[in-house]
């Protein structure tokens, strides 16, 4: 008989579908939405109308099996389970534009609905205990018919069996979540038995397993969904699916008969979460969500620690499974929603709203408890009416509860309150809620740190990939820019420190050839040291790149660092090592052979008069001696590029002469000497070419030959540039568009926007200078 009803619907529904489609101007998605809602209503009515389920008593497919065979019990149990998943998928399908839903509809839902048709009779029997016509049977027939036709429609319109490999993989990964979370509470017991009567409370093993699973779910889901963090709608879809299937699992216990008893209403804190979560995911209800975030999460966590079910139950006893589905979700889902930014992070205002919401809820349950106690002594919403919590806290709490009782009667109904106990109960919860606020703040801090870290790592990888692509090599250390060999190239380097809007250096371009001694001049705070720090890799450049002997300092730091030796403006040495130990340490780092280091150490200690003190600890050295050690350490590996930042400070005249000789010799050997100093006389005598930096910009570059031709000394030239307010005096302050900052791109694949911005600025600056 049920099959006849099913057959009728199988005919009626397509007619209805096409009529509706024609009626509403072929807007197929709207029609699908109507059918989805229709399916959801049928599903709800069928479950709400079913007052018992024969499967609830089945244990391990054999005990209290209502069917003639184990196979039938197995199939019905499995199908009841899969139907929940299939129905929820079909219900949310037209509301989200995602392939994965359509793929599930045309494969998984189709298979499940076909099996449902095949086992329709036994399934209806499991719900009603009879094969006769019933309301439940009729609605189930409608559901199966709608699901089958819906899935068939998707199969026909979505290229039949064609699913790309990537989508198949995505489906396979999602399948455990789709299945495990949709399990009705009685199905595990029906399929696997209830695993005897193990300790389910007091942090016994089984209790702990459920706790571990809750945290595994939370962490696992976070990391799975974090990959899609930019697609908020996708995350919302997944979370909505989870909240709906868990709501369905939870509601298996709520039928019409139970609902008409107000004392059984789902007003316990964690029960409310089951309804609040899908509502918050379907509609944008901020205040309701923050209530669940601060209040439900805490309540669920406390409930998970102190569950209120019987200890002598099995691991798969339906009441236990229902309890854990309910509380695990009430605990995890709001946290997932906030971490995945479906709702914005709460501010103090939202916290206040949630506390006001809690106050209203608390007053409501106090009143309802007091009122309903007149009809049923067991009514105990939020556990504020009974001694359940007081009992766990000890005798003092019991006394506190019973010593202060306030009771009055209205119209024959007695209202009893425990004012002090209930007030303290409320207060403690508010304090714990405040604790949650700090806990969330801490959690957000950690999350932000790791997200930033991940973003930076992504950028590094992107840069490396870009470099490999550019030079068509496999590993980043194989890459080498042949055009920059024997050169130091600073290409459009800009540097901002921290969150400063000012550039310490802006669009600096330099090229120094082999054999050159290059002087880098500028007043204090002009940005000389910033540029040098960027060149040596002590500070990353904000924009632009630096190549040393063909290697990029950011992307190939090790290779690039092997190419230079650096003498900083403030020596910083390992004071507890001797001079020899320190130099040998540096030589080891650069892989200098024994012969070479013997020769160089002996040469430089001799010319810098350091031989006698070379085996003393550095902390006993004078300022000049330490500077000499810094110079030797920079030269011990005979670098291609020698960078000196104010190197002559504190040296005696003989050493100054020797260092200058070393610089000349180093350049003559085909190396580069990059020299920054305030002492213009020395620069003039030593350097072949100079650049002047002012307020972070290179304002002049010239050779000493050119200056001689103009009959100008370097000092005159330098002062004319520095004292001319019109040159480079525009403050280097660029409003960096947030978009660029938030989405760090590869330095090689810069955003066009940023490139244009820099180009435009440089052009303007250049033209102003030209006019002057």
């Amino acid at each position: 008989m049920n099959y006849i009803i099913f057959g009728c619907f199988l005919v009626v529904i397509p007619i209805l579908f096409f009529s509706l489609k024609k009626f509403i101007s072929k807007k197929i998605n709207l029609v699908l939405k109507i059918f989805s809602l229709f399916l959801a209503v049928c599903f709800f009515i069928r479950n709400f109308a079913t007052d018992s389920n024969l499967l609830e008593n089945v244990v391990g497919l054999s005990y209290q099996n209502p069917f003639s065979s184990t196979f039938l019990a197995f199939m019905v149990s499995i199908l009841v389970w899969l139907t929940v998943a299939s129905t929820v998928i079909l219900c949310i399908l037209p509301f989200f534009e995602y392939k994965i839903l359509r793929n599930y509809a045309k494969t998984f839902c189709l298979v499940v609905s076909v099996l449902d048709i095949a086992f329709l009779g036994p399934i209806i029997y499991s719900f009603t205990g009879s094969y006769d016509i019933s309301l439940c049977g009729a609605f189930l027939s409608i559901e199966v018919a709608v699901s089958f036709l819906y899935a068939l429609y998707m199969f026909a319109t979505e290229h039949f069996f064609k699913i790309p490999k990537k989508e198949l993989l995505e489906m396979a990964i999602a399948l455990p979540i789709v299945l495990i979370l949709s399990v009705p509470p009685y199905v595990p017991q029906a399929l696997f038995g209830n695993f005897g009567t193990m300790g389910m409370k007091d942090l016994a093993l089984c209790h702990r397993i459920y706790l571990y699973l809750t945290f595994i779910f939370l962490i696992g889901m976070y990391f799975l969904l974090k990959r899609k963090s930019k697609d908020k709608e996708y995350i919302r879809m997944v979370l909505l699916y989870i909240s709906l299937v868990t709501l369905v699992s939870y509601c298996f216990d709520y039928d019409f008969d139970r609902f008409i008893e107000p004392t059984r209403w789902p007003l316990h804190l964690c029960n409310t979460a089951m309804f609040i979560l899908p509502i918050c995911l379907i509609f944008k209800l901020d205040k309701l969500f923050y209530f669940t975030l601060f209040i439900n999460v805490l309540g669920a966590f406390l409930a998970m620690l102190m569950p209120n079910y019987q200890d002598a139950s099995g691991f798969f006893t339906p009441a236990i499974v229902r309890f854990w589905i309910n509380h695990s979700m009430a605990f995890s889902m709001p946290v997932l929603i906030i971490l995945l930014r479906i709702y914005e992070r709460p501010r103090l205002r939202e916290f206040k709203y949630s506390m006001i919401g809690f106050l209203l809820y608390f007053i409501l349950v106090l009143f309802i408890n007091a009122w309903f106690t007149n009809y049923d002594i067991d009514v105990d919403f939020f556990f504020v009416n009974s001694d359940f919590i007081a009992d766990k806290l000890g005798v003092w709490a019991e006394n506190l509860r019973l010593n202060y009782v306030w009771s009055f009667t209205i119209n024959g109904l007695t209202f009893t309150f425990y004012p002090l106990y209930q007030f303290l109960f409320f207060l403690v919860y508010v304090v714990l809620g405040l604790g949650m606020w700090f806990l969330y703040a801490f959690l957000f801090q950690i999350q932000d740190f790791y997200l930033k870290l991940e973003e930076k790592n992504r950028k590094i990888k992107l840069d490396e990939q870009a470099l490999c692509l550019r030079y068509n090599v496999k590993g980043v250390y194989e890459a080498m820019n042949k055009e920059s060999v024997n050169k130091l190239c600073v290409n459009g380097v800009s540097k901002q420190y921290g969150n400063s809007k000012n550039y310490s250096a802006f669009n600096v371009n330099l090229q120094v050839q082999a054999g050159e001694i290059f002087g880098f001049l500028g007043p204090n705070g002009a940005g000389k040291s910033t540029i040098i720090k960027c060149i040596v890799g002590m500070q990353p450049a904000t924009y632009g790149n630096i190549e040393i002997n063909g290697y990029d300092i950011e992307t190939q730091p090790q290779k690039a660092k092997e190419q230079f030796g650096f003498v900083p403006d403030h020596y910083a040495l390992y004071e507890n090592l001797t001079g020899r130990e320190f130099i040998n340490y540096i030589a080891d780092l650069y892989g200098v052979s024994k012969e070479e280091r013997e020769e160089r150490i002996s040469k430089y200690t001799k010319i810098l008069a350091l031989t006698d003190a070379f085996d003393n600890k550095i902390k006993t050295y004078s300022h000049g001696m330490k500077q000499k050690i810094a110079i030797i350490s920079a030269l011990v590996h005979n670098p291609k590029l020698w960078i000196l930042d104010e190197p002559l400070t504190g040296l005696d005249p003989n050493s100054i002469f020797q260092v200058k000789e070393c610089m000349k010799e180093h350049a003559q050997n085909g190396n580069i000497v990059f020299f920054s100093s305030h002492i213009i006389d020395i620069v003039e005598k030593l350097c072949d070419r100079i650049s002047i930096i002012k307020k972070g910009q290179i304002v002049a570059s010239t050779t000493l030959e050119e200056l001689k031709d103009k009959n100008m000394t370097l000092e005159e030239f330098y002062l004319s540039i520095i004292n001319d307010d019109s040159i480079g005096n525009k403050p280097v302050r660029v409003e960096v568009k947030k978009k660029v900052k938030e989405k760090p791109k590869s330095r090689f694949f810069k955003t066009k926007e940023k490139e244009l911005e820099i180009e435009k600025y440089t052009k303007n600056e250049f033209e102003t200078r030209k006019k002057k």
Partner: protein
Amino acid sequence: MNKLKTLFLMQVKEKIDFSFLKSKKQIIFKVIFSIFGFALITALSYLVMFLCQFLNLFSALNRIPMTVMGVVFFVMFVLNLLTCMVGLSKTLYFSKDNQILITYPVNANALFLSKMLVYYIYEVKKNFSFIIPVFFAYGLISSMPFLYFLWFPLMITIFTLVPILLGALLSFPIYFILRFFQRFPIVKVVLTLILVAGIVTAVVFAINAIPEDINLIRSWGVISQAIRNFLSFFADKFFVFYAITIFLCGRFEGINHILFTEYSWIVLLIMLGTILVLVGLNYLISRPLYLKMSVKQFEFSIIKPKVHQNLVRKKFWSSCVNETKKTLRDTNILSTTLATLIITPICILLLNSIYSAINTRLMGDYLAISFNVLIILLFTLAHNINVSNIYSKDGGAMMQNKLKPMSPTKVLTPYLVYNLVTTTLILVASVSVFLVNTDLAVLDSILLFFTLLFLSYIHIICSAEIDFLHPRDLKSQANINQNEVKSSILTFAISLIFFGVLFFFLLDGLNGVYLKLFCVVTLVLILRCWLFHYKARVLFKEI
């Protein structure tokens, strides 16, 4: 006077962090946290006193006698005096700012006075974080009148001058001793070793003195009598401190409390007189010495060293050798390591000697195992707190690590070699002593050792991470070293959590407790190593 004020403000800002005054929000936070900290210490002290009172530990009258507070006050005074002696010798004679301050156009007396004032303010601040809360707790538990809570802080603020002035006088010999140690660090190490050897001998003697059967309940009468005898001895022989305590806290007559006794004014006058005498002595002795010594250079003539050969090593190995060499040449770290290496096993031996003398049930055995583990962890992890400064300690040299042609992980890891090795040695020594005294199965013993070792490694890595992510300027004394605070919190957190988990698991009678713990700790170690590498790779260049 204005110059004194300027000097004082300049130095006080260096010693005490006032950065919170910049914003109202920070002021509120600071005030709330200070009150919270004060309340917490008061509450903890109250709890301890309540327990003592409940157990009638010091008196059968269900009260804590004044002599107990006298002993507390005496111990605090001695500790205060010691810290003042060392602290003032550093502030007055070793402080590098002397060489700049002396060049300012100020009266040299003002300089000395400003330094003393700054130190005084610092000590008063310290009082509010310990001694005052403890005595407040005493006031609360003894139901003292409200006036006591005003009187005590006021008087202790005045009394703080005594250890400071005394410390300033005594700091001069300390200065010479410290200079001598600076000149000959080996003497410091030898003396430390002698001291440690002395302690070891004393402890071994104490261990031998432990009776074979301890029954606290049966011998309670004897213990209680011994405590009371000691208190009477203190009141008799250290009458000065007892009298000062009565002056500060008042006296009980029956159940009545009298804050101001007939001797109060005499004691007050004596105290003020003592302070005046000490001020005079300081003016005559310490001030001229300070002016003479503060500008003295601490450079010694270079001794012609032995010439060494140049050695070639592999890149990473060379880093490990040189970083370890640097650490080994830091006598402070070396002494701490040696002390931990010797004291930890001895403590464990002492603890187990007491345990073995007590007849325990199964729960007691589990508690004994857990406590052993707790003590071992506390000592070992505390030894590694120095890792939270390991990079900052190098100052500018740390920044130049970025120049090394190595991956960030390879640059940062060699710094940890010393602690990784010494931690292993400390654990081998202490766990061996523990295992000899317990009947743990061989496999469980091995697993427990590696679990503790890995926990220590996790702590080292976390502390190193704290430092390389937030390098600090160790020359500035203004702020409390947050890195050390974080590492210390981590020490307590790891030790207490592991203690709790181990005890809970043992009590739960689970199978394979040690294996489970080992697996979890190993996983955490792997995760921490990976995170260290990951953070170094991404963030090192930005620091």
